[in-house]
């Protein structure tokens, strides 16, 4: 399986996402923001960082990168896409996910090891977890406060599209403790904390982040076998 990781100017955790994909057993393929070709990858990670220096708004310019046009089309066709941190911001700017990520309520960048509760396991990126499982992965952002209007929030809850919530403390003031959400099809997931930094005992607080990448591989294997977990058809 080939997982593509996009590098935008200002992407920072792209190497880490690629490493995580490799540790999970995938081939990591580096994608370039200016190249619309996805080089036949089976899934895409939009990594953390400060694409385009966060100019205008986080993710506002990355959304228009040539590679994003292809990714947006493919995502609508079912390609599994995981947006981490800045990647989540880009997915929201690209309207692949609802809502927006705003400045942390306390106005500081915040880096800590964060407990999450996985609340949806029917996505391409979380099917390997158990419902309600508590996991520990690093959070590090300045603009991670998820906001949406009440109707959207209610919808997300009603449709089971809140993928993970902060537990034992909310690090940024996100509404309803939202840490990760998915689209209706379950193939596109945006998450504020960084699963790619919890894949090795030596460097992470846990190995819990690996589950996101192995879930994708499982999902892809399932798709290849014709039995899809959720969501639309493979590209």
């Amino acid at each position, binding site marked *: 399986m080939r997982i593509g990781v996009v590098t935008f100017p200002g992407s920072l955790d792209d190497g880490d996402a690629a*490493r995580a994909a490799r540790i999970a057993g995938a081939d990591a393929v580096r994608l370039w923001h200016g190249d619309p070709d996805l080089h036949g990858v089976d899934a895409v990670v939009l990594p953390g960082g*400060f694409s385009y220096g966060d100019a205008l708004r986080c993710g506002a310019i990355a959304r228009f990168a040539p590679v994003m046009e292809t990714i947006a089309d493919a995502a609508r066709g079912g390609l599994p896409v995981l947006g981490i941190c800045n990647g989540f911001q880009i997915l929201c700017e690209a309207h692949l996910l609802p809502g927006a990520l705003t400045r942390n309520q306390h106005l500081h960048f915040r880096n800590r090891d964060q407990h999450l509760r996985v609340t949806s396991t029917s996505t391409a990126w979380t099917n390997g977890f158990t419902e309600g499982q508590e996991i520990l992965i690093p959070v*590090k952002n300045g603009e991670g406060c998820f906001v949406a209007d009440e109707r959207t929030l209610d919808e997300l809850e009603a449709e089971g599209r809140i993928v993970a919530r902060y537990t034992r403390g909310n690090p940024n*003031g996100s509404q309803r403790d939202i840490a990760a959400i998915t689209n209706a099809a379950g193939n596109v997931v945006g998450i504020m904390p960084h699963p790619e930094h919890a894949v090795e005992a030596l460097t992470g607080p846990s190995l819990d982040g690996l589950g996101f990448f192995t879930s994708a591989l499982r999902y892809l294997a399932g798709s290849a076998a014709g039995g899809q977990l959720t969501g639309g058809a493979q590209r």
Partner: protein
Amino acid sequence: MTTQHDTATSGATAPPEVPQQPANAKPGGFAATDVLINQFDGGPDTVERALNTSDELQPHAELGLKDDEYDRIRQILGRRPTASELAMYSIMWSEHCSYKSSKVHLRQFGEKAPKNTRMLAGIGENAGVVQISDEIAVTFKVESHNHPSFVEPYQGAATGVGGIVRDILAMGARPIAVMDPLRFGAADHPDTARVLPGVVAGIGGYGNCLGLPNIGGEIVFDPCYQGNPLINALSIGVMPVERLQRKEAAGVGNVVVLLGARTGRDGIGGVSVLASATFDEGAEQRRPSVQVGDPFMEKLLIESCLELYDAGLVVGIQDLGGAGLTCALTETAAAAGTGMRVYLERVPLREASMSPTEILASESQERMLLIVAPEKLDEVLKVAEKWGVWATDIGEVTPSETDGQPGRLVISWNDHIVVDVPPGSLADDGPVYARPIREPADLILLQADRAETLPRPSTPDELRETLLRMIASPNLCDKSWVTEQYDRYVLGNTVLAQPEDAGVLRIDERTGLGVALSVDGNGRYTRLDPYEGARLALAEAYRNVAVTGAEPIAVTDCLNFGSPEDPAVMWQFAEAVRGLADGCQQLGIPVTGGNVSFYNQTGAAAIHPTPVVGVLGILNDVARRTPMGFPPPPTAEGDLLFLLGDTECELSGSEWAWVTHGHLGGRPPKVDLAHEQALGRLMAQASEREHIVAAHDLSDGGLAQVLVESCLRRNVGARIMLPEHDAAVTPFVWLFSESAGRALVAVPRGHDKAFVALAAEHNVSCVQIGVTAEEPVLDIHDQFTIGLDEVRAAFTATMRNLFGGPAEGVTRQIAAVVEAAELAAAEPAAEVEAADDDRATGTSVTLEISEPAHPASGPADEVAEVPSGPDADPAVTPIDAEPATAKPDDQPESKA
């Protein structure tokens, strides 16, 4: 992002007499050609004009040049310097660039340097480079950015990070981490509430955006730093050995390329240039200001430089920092002995009206100077374009003189020759002073006033109260309020980071090769005895690295002192350098580079002499690093705790004397470097043989502090039985003495005999003082017991109380900024001159502060919505509070 968006601002047609922009330069942007030449009163001051007006008075004194220095410049040139030349000499001969006061002392680092085969580049380069395996080298250096950070905390600190990172990059390395040793005035002083949050946000804002993990540092409060906070920044980078870059502008005919950001007026006056009204009377819009950082540009600069190195496209490279183009042009040419011909009108500008002198003096950030073979220029430009950074051919390397003398640096601006100098006279042949030194008059009295005579707590209750008071004191308390604002995970190789003793990084994923880094200093010790204080700082950094299991191999230092014109300060400097050089000689590890920061002084009051020492160590297998936290005990009996090294009654200069008595006097603890080496070897072997599961160096606050930190790290208790005490070494002394050369280790049962034997083999004294416990308590037998919850509450509340819950911090800060701006406006102008050092910020003290100093502040209305002040609605705090108390319901806006 490419440069196309800039083309809208270009389009000025060059006057016919101006050479056309070279075809290979990037288009667009303001060019110097946009300026009407007559703006400069008949044109810029040219060499020709200087020859014809040799008697014209020049403002050399205002630029910080002494009369005899000015005479020497005239002698070197055989005429008066042009305005641009004068500015260049004043910059390059400033204390900051020329090290004119420190040079005679710093030589010891070379003279006393131990033989070392690892060092590939040392003092005099942008940063020292040490080889850590057959293929891999690392480069690291610590530098100061003190004065700018006091003037404008956010940008000052941010550009401090940017500057040191470019030094690392210029050596050919990929920067992989930063560390920040910080010193502020009294924790509860209103101005500290202005400076600290801004500095921390600036370091975070720049480093996080650059994708560099922040893996350690220091945060120290002392009133002596009130008007002179010390903002030091360390960076480390890694490279394949063969990628080491040179700064020489070698190869006649090679192209000089300016890469990175466009040049603006920021930072001009950094070394007090252009502060003179003679240069420009209506200078309103040209006011020099603090450099403004753009980490995104620096990130692109890093990626493009690395791509250029790997493709072998660069002959020489030098970063632009303090002294900007002036420094980069003269140093690269002087290093090669070549000449250089530079066309200033080609330099891409942010402001079209900049004069040639300003272009040469600008300290705009995120720029590098490349020397490129002409046939590779196109490839270089392509790489730059790929990453969206400017690359401009601004000149070429020229031959040395026909008589064998080094070449000349000739700089023109629209066909006017404004500079024609021997580059070595600027870069290498600056003045050198052996300044008078004199032991401070008060030192004898100070040393006689020993803290060992102060009243001490003795009853169990008093000891318990002292412990809680100590761990809540600003210097010893938990600093996660600060460190949580730094990304420590990015790049995925951080094995240990603050609050651990040393930052540990994985360097090679295949082999597990890693490095450990620590920076330490203790201004109080150095105040009491600069020679021993410097050795103590070295010993502590060495020990911090050693307790992780690493082998210390190299040193960098940032020497922060008062005015070198004060003989007492100069004596402190001379003694500290001598102590550090002797110490490094004895430990067998060389100083590979560093920086001197003088003039950290307000009026007659200098800061404590504060040498900050960074030590780098190697771990062949980074997986066997020893962390500081006690692991959860494998059995109910717990791991065994041993105290290594000798504890004596050494309280002078200690945190205890300061916190409980406000006392500073006596002599600092003794330091025995041979013992430090033995301890280091013991720690490395013990970790290799897996005899220890945790280790923590003892320093400020003594054993009590270490127990608290090691327990709280993973919420594991400890039961301590203090060793036998006598009249001299009482329970109090065991807990709070700051004797050097000690560490606390946790040894799993079954390993204790072997460990004790190993300690004996290394001649390190070793005494069992207790066990770890499942129950979360710190129990000092026969003295007191405290639950870890109570310990944690005391340890973690201080920073939040001082600097607010985050939201409160912001509003307080804005008030403080306003107040500080008023304060600064009232500062006497004389203080501004102190900013000679540190790419300093010249005359802009009163100018920029009222700008929003803190991008994190957000719009005012956003701030206003957030309750503030000590009596604020508790609803705000849960975000920042301990997880156990955080309830989503408590957050404003978190529910319908």
